[in-house]
């Protein structure tokens, strides 16, 4: 079954399929594709605490998106059971750079030396998982969107705000890659 797909699924197939999520959600119910909104809906559901940002009707406005989010989880479970990604063929340059940062096990979807329960309270684990996750939640809420909301939906709709956000994504990503990760991982 592991030969069901070539790995990775080529970009020229995966990209257009992901792009089609935009019209699919519009045709289905005029819904905007944006995964990060679910953080806001979940905060509104779990701990609104009288905060105005969480005072919206999350069931009516976000119910469909939470179903979408649950779908992502289910799809990932099925995909990794039926046709798990095998050994990654990583670019030699990135491989060398990661070796230099002290990562030696480059198999799987995440570096096992970092993304494991046992690493949670080491510097590299805590910064990558806890701080990184916090920044993803804070940043997407502040920017009003993530890769799906700004980089895909917003750019496709030619929105200047989204172009600005995507520039921010890359500025932050490059700073994380070249300034923070070398300190944290070594």
């Amino acid at each position, binding site marked *: 079954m592991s030969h069901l797909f070539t790995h990775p699924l080529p*970009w020229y197939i995966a990209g257009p399929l992901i792009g089609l999520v*935009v019209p699919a959600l519009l045709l289905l119910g005029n819904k905007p594709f944006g995964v990060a909104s679910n953080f806001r809906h979940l905060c509104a559901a779990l701990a609104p605490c009288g905060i105005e940002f969480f005072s919206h009707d999350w069931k009516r406005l976000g119910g469909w998106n939470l179903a979408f989010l649950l779908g992502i989880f289910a799809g990932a479970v099925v995909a990794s059971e039926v046709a798990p990604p095998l050994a990654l063929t990583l670019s030699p340059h990135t491989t060398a750079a990661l070796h230099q940062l002290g990562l030696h096990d480059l198999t799987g979807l995440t570096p096992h030396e970092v993304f494991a329960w046992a690493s949670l309270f080491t510097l590299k684990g805590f910064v990558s*998982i806890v701080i990184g996750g916090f920044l993803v939640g804070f940043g997407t809420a502040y920017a009003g969107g993530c890769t799906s909301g700004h980089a895909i939906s917003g750019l496709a709709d030619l929105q200047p705000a989204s172009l600005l956000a995507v520039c921010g994504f890359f500025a932050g990503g490059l700073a994380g890659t070249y300034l923070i990760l070398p300190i944290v991982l070594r």
Partner: protein
Amino acid sequence: MTLLPYFLIGSAFGVILVEAEVVSWFRIQEMFRFDAFHMYGIIGTAVLTAAISLLTIKRLGVRGPDGEPLGFTPKVLGTGARYLAGGMVFGLGWALTGACPGPLVALVGAGTPVMLVAFLSALGGTWTYGRLRPKLPH
């Protein structure tokens, strides 16, 4: 059940994220190091496909069940501060976790259960933003 179609589209998205290795921390590193075309090809063709779809929907004047034309509400640009600053904070988190929100959830189901902590931490991040929102430049 009206939510089922959204669940199914989400599932298809989840399968693609895993099979195209978009959920891979290593692919995100390759992207930020400009060492491979893979992620740029995916995001680029996704934007192109979405743009062509949006143009087609507008040209045909497709309307939703409520009679409104299908499409997005334009984002208010303002000073742009929130997009640049928020974008940079998210980008930093994207590089550290190796995952944007969709892949974060996908990874929990695809063999990295500790990503659940990153997901909960992201909820904490969004909550903190909600709390600080009145004081932040937008």
